[in-house]
């Protein structure tokens, strides 16, 4: 099974695993810690939307819901971080199953519009329920996950690596092929005996569960559940990261998320223009690397290598 994992991915994670031995700046470790969470979200978005072709435009709904449920359980009932993360992620998965059963029979843009509408509605609802969610301030005073930035760094990096390995294995299994078949032609897949709705609902649930764990980790690392975790701009950012890296490849969105998160920090002085810059990157990607930047770079390297060889 592990033979199927792209070597470049192993090198990538290996390099990040060694980084704290050479860099001890909490700021840099913090940037990569957040990048690992974005990578988790981009990959888990990809296993559903990239593989089934149903674009989830409201992915932050799952991240934010899991984050706030976890935060409420943690702060009000005093549950341990890991338990509240699990409860938050399971809530997100349950909501995904309900939403999936209700909406995944729809075809075309309807599903995308509904996910976006639900994201916006729940973001507003969180403001209405400010007594529980803290409104725009969010929920503060959340217990830290570990004892410092280096441990947080490794927790998120290991989680990102595990998600990468699991999703790559899943995407290359027969179930991954079935998901691609559903994306390519749903009628042909149904006529071939594939229960396309069950597959999509299960993948939607898995995608939400992983997003939820990421949301839970985020609030315990930040020690604060921000209302931004339910924002449409977070959904859009994850979508752009996945498209930039290369939808339907798992490794592409992972690569895209690390690149754009780090770029985002480099352009910190231009924070208010971040979405504008991201949109520009998206447009350029669609024009010059429609299959994603990862495949574009890979192809370029292959061409250069074959020219060198002769």
């Amino acid at each position, binding site marked *: 099974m592990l033979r199927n994992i792209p070597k470049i991915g192993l090198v990538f994670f290996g390099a990040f695993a060694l980084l704290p031995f050479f860099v001890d700046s909490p700021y840099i470790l913090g940037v990569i810690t957040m990048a690992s969470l974005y990578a988790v979200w981009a990959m888990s978005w990809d296993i559903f939307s990239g593989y089934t072709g149903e674009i989830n435009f409201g992915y932050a709904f799952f991240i934010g819901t899991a984050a706030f449920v976890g935060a409420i359980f943690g702060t009000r009932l005093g549950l341990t971080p890991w338990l509240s993360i699990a409860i938050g992620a399971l809530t997100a998965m349950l909501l995904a199953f309900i939403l999936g059963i209700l909406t995944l029979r729809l075809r075309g843009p309807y599903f995308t519009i509904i996910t976006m509408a639900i994201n916006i509605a729940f973001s507003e609802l969180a403001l209405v329920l400010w007594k529980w969610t803290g409104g725009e301030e969010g929920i503060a005073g959340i217990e830290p996950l570990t004892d410092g930035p280096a441990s947080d760094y490794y927790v998120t990096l290991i989680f990102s690596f595990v998600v990468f390995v699991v999703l790559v294995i899943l995407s290359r299994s027969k179930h991954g092929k*079935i998901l691609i*078949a559903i994306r390519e032609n749903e009628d042909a897949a149904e006529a*071939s005996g594939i229960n396309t709705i069950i597959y999509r609902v299960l993948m939607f649930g898995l995608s939400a569960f992983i997003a939820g764990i990421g949301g839970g980790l985020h609030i315990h690392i930040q020690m604060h559940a921000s209302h931004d975790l339910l924002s449409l701009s977070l959904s859009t950012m994850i979508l752009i990261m996945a498209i930039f890296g290369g939808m339907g490849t798992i490794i592409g969105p992972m690569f895209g998320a690390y690149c754009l998160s780090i770029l985002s920090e480099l352009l910190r002085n231009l924070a208010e223009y971040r979405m504008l810059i991201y949109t520009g990157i998206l447009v350029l990607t669609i024009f010059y690397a429609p299959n994603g930047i990862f495949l574009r770079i890979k192809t370029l390297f292959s061409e250069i290598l074959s020219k060198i060889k002769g």
Partner: protein
Amino acid sequence: MGEIFLEVKGLNKSFGGLRATSAVSFLAHREEIMGIIGPNGAGKTTLFNLLTGFLKADSGVILYKGQAIGGLRPHKIARFGVSRSFQVARLFPNMSVEQALFVPQYSTRKGKNKKSVEDIKAYCEHLLVDIGLQKKKDHLVKSLTQGELKLLDIARSLASEPDLLLLDEPFSGLGHRDIQPLTALILRLRDRGLTLLVIEHKLRELMSFVDRVIVINFGQVIADGSPQEIGKNKTVIDSYLGEEEIEIGIA
């Protein structure tokens, strides 16, 4: 005649004010090849869509091996052993030809044992030889010609190992050179125990190998009989065949 495999009774389907099928009833027997003919828009493909779950009938009964399958979703009907090809091939463009055939093999067919990866590969390779696309097995589906897509769609429908196969205009887009081997394959499938329903407009070719024909016009079955009987049927001649078809030799 063999046992009754498919029994269709009083099947009705309307789209708004248009009656696509009206009280359609017929029987198909085991190891029988049944042709379904009729003018464009007569309701032939609608009938296939009703039989395979892509459309729900307004009323009527579909019994497959005595079991009601009307209203079930397409994948459930496929798992019972009813498979179909489409008028315009529906496939997986970015998969290889071989991988496209793996997909039906991944579904769990009722009463069939799960195959190993090697067995699935061997089975699909055999299918590709049958259909004449073995040289294209590593090509992407989207790189195939229209005729090859049509053949692959038929292979895809066979890859779910059906007992009842519905072919929607299998000869359209094929040259004369491809039609003969496909006809031979259809006859071999019948000999292997399959029952086939075939919609086709190329009547001379169709009539050469079918056992029975039903004729549909304006959503109704207007004739049911052997190719010879259909060729002499006055109603069919008047409404669909015309004298020219009789002359080209279907009678």
